[in-house]
């Protein structure tokens, strides 16, 4: 791998990490389309690589959350056991599917998430503007074009 590719990947990771930390989203929905569209990865390799990043990230994050006593293990354990079975089923289906089909399914997932994120933006915006008596204009001026 060329050094420029390595640097570009680190930069992509940086942006995703920052976004994930502030919006509370995982990296997967960013990594997979970015690897496919920007780095010309095969859909399956993009997904496998995404998982390889998510696993260590989740381990580190779990340790931090456990120390902060924010992990409800009573619920996490059955969730994880069922999650393993579900993940094996999902991955088994993914390896059967053609890359083109998987790509389009993923694109549907992204459009659904886009819609949800849009409503979240609208919700936050509305709440801010209905609750605040003053200081409305400074938020408005920061709106993207």
């Amino acid at each position, binding site marked *: 791998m060329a050094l420029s590719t390595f640097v570009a990947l680190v930069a992509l990771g940086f942006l995703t990490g920052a976004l994930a*930390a*502030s919006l509370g989203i995982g990296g997967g929905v960013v990594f997979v389309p970015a690897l496919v569209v920007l780095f010309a990865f095969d859909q399956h390799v993009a997904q496998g690589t995404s998982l390889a990043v998510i696993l260590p990230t989740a381990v580190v994050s779990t340790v931090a959350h456990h120390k902060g006593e924010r992990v409800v293990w009573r619920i996490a354990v059955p969730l994880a056991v069922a999650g393993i079975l579900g993940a094996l089923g999902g991955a088994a289906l993914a390896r059967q599917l053609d890359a083109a089909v998987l790509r389009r399914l993923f694109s549907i997932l992204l459009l659904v998430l886009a819609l949800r994120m849009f409503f979240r933006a609208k919700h936050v915006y509305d709440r801010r503007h209905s609750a605040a008596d003053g200081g409305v204009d400074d938020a408005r001026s920061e709106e993207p074009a």
Partner: protein
Amino acid sequence: MTRTRCAFAPVVVYVPLMRAYVEGAALGAVAGFLAGLFGIGGGVIIVPGLVLWLRLTQYEASGTAVATIVASSAAALVLFAADGKVDWFAAFALFVGSGAGAWIGGRLIERIPEHVLAGGFALVLLIAGVRLWL
């Protein structure tokens, strides 16, 4: 189907906690399936599920979700790795970047109002979704 029985075995032992177990397991199975199919963490399903369905706080939901993502992403990764569908070097680069990003970038990005950030991200997802379809 002995495996499936294993997943539900705790239900028999802790009857008062049965609902949480069954609901948690159902949520885990759906989220795990999407995680395995799409190579994502699945927090997008688990976190709202834990908050709305199992009545955890947002903080507990985030903490509990990442713990389950360890298990589901490991399971899915095994199958993808067995097929040679993992670019380990790229994964390393992304991991290094995202660690730094969560640590440093998270603080910088907090200055951007949430609706701008969420709106911008919605736009990026929309473009990526359309681009991926074509």
